[in-house]
């Protein structure tokens, strides 16, 4: 997934934390390459609402999508693959309990845990 954004040091720093690497840079734009979903808020970038909106409008995502929800910019890759996992009742109950504690859905928990485990194994983060 390629993310083209106006040059901003804080944004680049945040993206590098989730294993995004700069591909190209010029005076006004930066192209970053990465594969994970990322959420950036206007507070993270220390921008006012209007400035943040302008920044979000200028961001271009190839191979993925961007969504702005108020003061939050969500960049995520297109999810074209489906992985089917078979679970026993006990495993399902454990996942359900864990998801309830974290106040999220089971598939969200599964996806998040899976990706963080993979990234940790590969020392991406």
């Amino acid at each position, binding site marked *: *997934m390629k993310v083209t954004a106006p040059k901003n040091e804080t944004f680049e720093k945040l993206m590098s934390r989730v294993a995004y690497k700069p591909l190209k840079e010029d005076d006004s734009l930066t192209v970053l390459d990465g*594969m*994970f979903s990322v959420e950036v808020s206007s507070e993270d970038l220390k921008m006012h609402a209007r400035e943040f909106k302008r920044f979000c409008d200028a961001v271009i995502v190839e191979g*993925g999508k961007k969504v702005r929800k108020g003061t939050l910019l969500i960049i995520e*890759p*297109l*999810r*074209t*693959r*489906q*992985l*089917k*996992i*078979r*679970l*026993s*009742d*006990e*495993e*399902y109950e*454990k*996942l359900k*309990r*864990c998801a309830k*504690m974290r106040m999220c859905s*089971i*598939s969200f*928990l*599964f*996806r998040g*845990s*899976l*990706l*963080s*485990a*993979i990234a940790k*194994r*590969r020392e991406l983060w």
Partner: protein
Amino acid sequence: MPYLVKAPKDERVNLVFSHAFKKVGEGEKYFVYEGRIDVEFPQAMFGLSGDEFRKLCRSIRVEGGFKKRTEDGVRIAPLRKKVLTVRLSEDEYRLLVEDAREVGLEPSRWARNLVMSLVEQYLALELKKKAMQEIREVCGGCKYWTGEGCGNPTIPKLYLREVYSGHRKECQYKVERVGVM
């Protein structure tokens, strides 16, 4: 839900199975074990010859689960009736497949193993937190309270849940001298 494994009475088999399963019954010629997790037993663990191992695999009966011969052993696992669908991007899927290939498992099985181990860790941590909170409430003001457990030298080293119940049962310090409880 736990599954039941019926295996012939054999000391070698019993020795191996008792590490992974809980013995819940026995008949004249067999033991009944209760299992919860997915386990794979290599043939070498039993110390049986090829023929003996084949016979053993055939004689094992699993209720609420299944057995499957693997390359060098037998796998016993619970039935998995629930299906969870997760959407992944191409890159994420590629990483998963590469990792799974590295360890010689199917991507879905590898994904399940990875996530379930994390979930177990998380649930254990939550239990620990809850137990610690309970202990702190009961033993917090005690002279022997170390901040992590009971430091009373007359009590065997007990932690967490054991400390909670053990402290109340065995450590009378607080009751006698402090009178908080």
